């Protein structure tokens, strides 16, 4: 923020800043650079990755870290072992008819194919998913959020061999290198991902979470008594919906405590008595903002809306 301010402000201010390096001057300068707007919130620390689509909207994926990818890898490993076992059973029955060579050869070539091209094959055919990834709701995409092509799919799986290092004993991969590289990169990419420009994202179904049901008679009655011209602004509406969505997790005393941070000053502004229940006030505002202004409107399908919103 401050460095950005240094770039946009004139030389006098820069000089000024250098001469008086006190924090309030810095803050003032930063605020000036923002034209008095609120500073942008810092980037979220969780593993989200934003993608802009050709439809010109941005949506975000949750990136899959090593601990989401490990179970998918384990499933794929089991499947590979299972397939290998089946091929082994089928091919050893060739031995009975005397085609030992063909049987052995098929086993060995299948082993080669499965160990190097299993992932590449499925990620090509299934649009970035192996059976394990499909089961656990993961998908490989390019860093631009586009589907991967055959070359990327095969190459990222061939390069798994370096990520698997160090390989100890009878060829047991420890995946230490891959893990370290994943931890060191911003988007949980192992070396194979870095070389192919791919990421792994979570693509799970989410339950449609809607509005919370607050058709308590007391809340509705209270929302009528609030001044009609008052309407929560965007930031407050957000705070209200976050609060109401989570209030069921808290005890009454805790709700009282949390709600009073906002409800206290708000009650004063609205001229409500000091002993107003803060939880009730926030619920009533929520009801008015998101569900209905007057009971008459809401009466069309009150419980239906609220119930559907809950499912």
């Amino acid at each position, binding site marked *: 923020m401050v460095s950005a301010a240094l770039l946009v402000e004139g030389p006098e201010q820069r000089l000024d800043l250098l001469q008086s390096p006190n924090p309030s001057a810095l803050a003032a300068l930063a605020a000036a650079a923002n034209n008095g707007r609120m500073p942008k919130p810092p980037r979220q620390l969780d593993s989200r990755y934003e993608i802009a689509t050709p439809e010109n909207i941005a949506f975000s994926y949750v990136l899959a870290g090593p601990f989401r990818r490990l179970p998918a890898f384990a499933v794929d490993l089991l499947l590979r072992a299972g397939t290998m076992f089946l091929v082994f059973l089928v091919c050893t029955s060739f031995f009975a008819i005397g085609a030992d*060579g063909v049987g052995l050869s098929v086993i060995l070539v299948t*082993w080669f194919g499965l160990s190097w091209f299993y992932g590449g094959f499925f990620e090509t055919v299934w649009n970035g998913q192996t059976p394990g990834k499909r089961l656990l709701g993961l998908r490989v995409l390019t860093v631009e959020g586009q589907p991967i092509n*055959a070359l990327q799919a095969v190459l990222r799986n*061939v390069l798994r061999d370096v990520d698997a290092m160090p390989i100890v004993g009878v060829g047991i991969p420890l995946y230490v290198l891959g893990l370290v590289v994943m931890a060191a990169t911003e988007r949980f990419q192992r070396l194979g991902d870095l070389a192919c420009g791919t990421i792994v994202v979570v693509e799970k179904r989410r339950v449609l979470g809607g509005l919370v049901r607050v058709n308590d008679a007391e809340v509705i009655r209270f929302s009528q008594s609030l001044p009609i011209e008052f309407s929560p602004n965007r930031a407050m509406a957000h705070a209200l919906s976050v609060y109401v969505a989570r209030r069921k997790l808290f005890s009454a005393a805790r709700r009282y405590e949390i709600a009073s941070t906002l409800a206290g000053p708000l009650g004063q502004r609205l001229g409500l008595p000091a002993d107003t229940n803060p939880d009730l006030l926030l619920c009533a505002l929520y009801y008015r903002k998101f569900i209905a202004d007057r009971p008459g409107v809401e009466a069309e399908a009150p419980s239906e809306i609220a119930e559907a919103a809950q499912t």
Partner: protein
Amino acid sequence: MKVAQLLEQRRDGWRDLESLCLELERRGPRRMGAAAVSRFASLYRAACADLALADAYQLPPDTVGYLHALVGRAHNQLYRSQTFRFRDWSHEMFVELPRRMLSDRTLWLAFVIFWGAFGLSMWLGYASRPYAEQVIGEVTMASMEASYSAPLVGRDVDTNTAMTGFYVLNNAGIGLRCFAGGLLLGVGGLFITLSNAVQLGAVFGHMLTVPQRDNFLQFVTAHGPFELTAIVFASGAGMRLGFSLISTGGLERMASLRRAAVLAGPMVAAAVVLFCLAAVIEGFVSPSAAPYVLKAAVAVLTALLLAFYVVGLGLAARR
């Protein structure tokens, strides 16, 4: 409009989109029919619009999260990669790749390093037994001498087929490992190329000094050109990956790596094909009792084929 009403209005569309996504995943777009696909597209656009306006609508955070996941899921069904197309790949393998190989300095470097180190090590292995002992190890040396002690009389078809499978698994696996190892510290490819060349050279040099020499040459001549060239291709591709991290050509380091991977990929594919062809020759021709002239002819023919592939097709593609 209140959020409750809006949600009521949109919910069915979102649910439909969700089930269409599931169906697309299960059955693929071809079997869904045009009507379902175009309905999917319009529902997707509607969901995109809802997500874009989520802030303006003041949708609850849970709903926004749901929309992000829904749009992401639908996006992945709508935008698909061009799956494998034979025409594109044959163009890549027979026009683009030879042209690039011919002017690929990394590949020529790998070629020179491999054959240089191979020749040097062969000479050393031929001239001094202690050198060969150090490089190959006495146990391996003894077992190699033992395995070539009898003249080749040919094996039965069964053993040949089984051994071909083994050569694919083992040699192509080593080749792919050489390629992947090239990424290590940028110079992994250099190290792997050198160590392969020194090992193989020492074996060749040493085997020329022992009485089993003729049997050994009988065996290795036919598949030599394909197999050794495949190693050069694989390690050259690996070196390309590694060097791209060091010499970025003005790109960001990771962008340089990505560009190198796209160029190196088809070269590794060529190496794997060569390894498989070499495995067939090694399985069927090399161990046979056929006269040496025939095996030498196979070697010359395969070497000419390779030269034609890189130089002939490369020059043709250049024009």
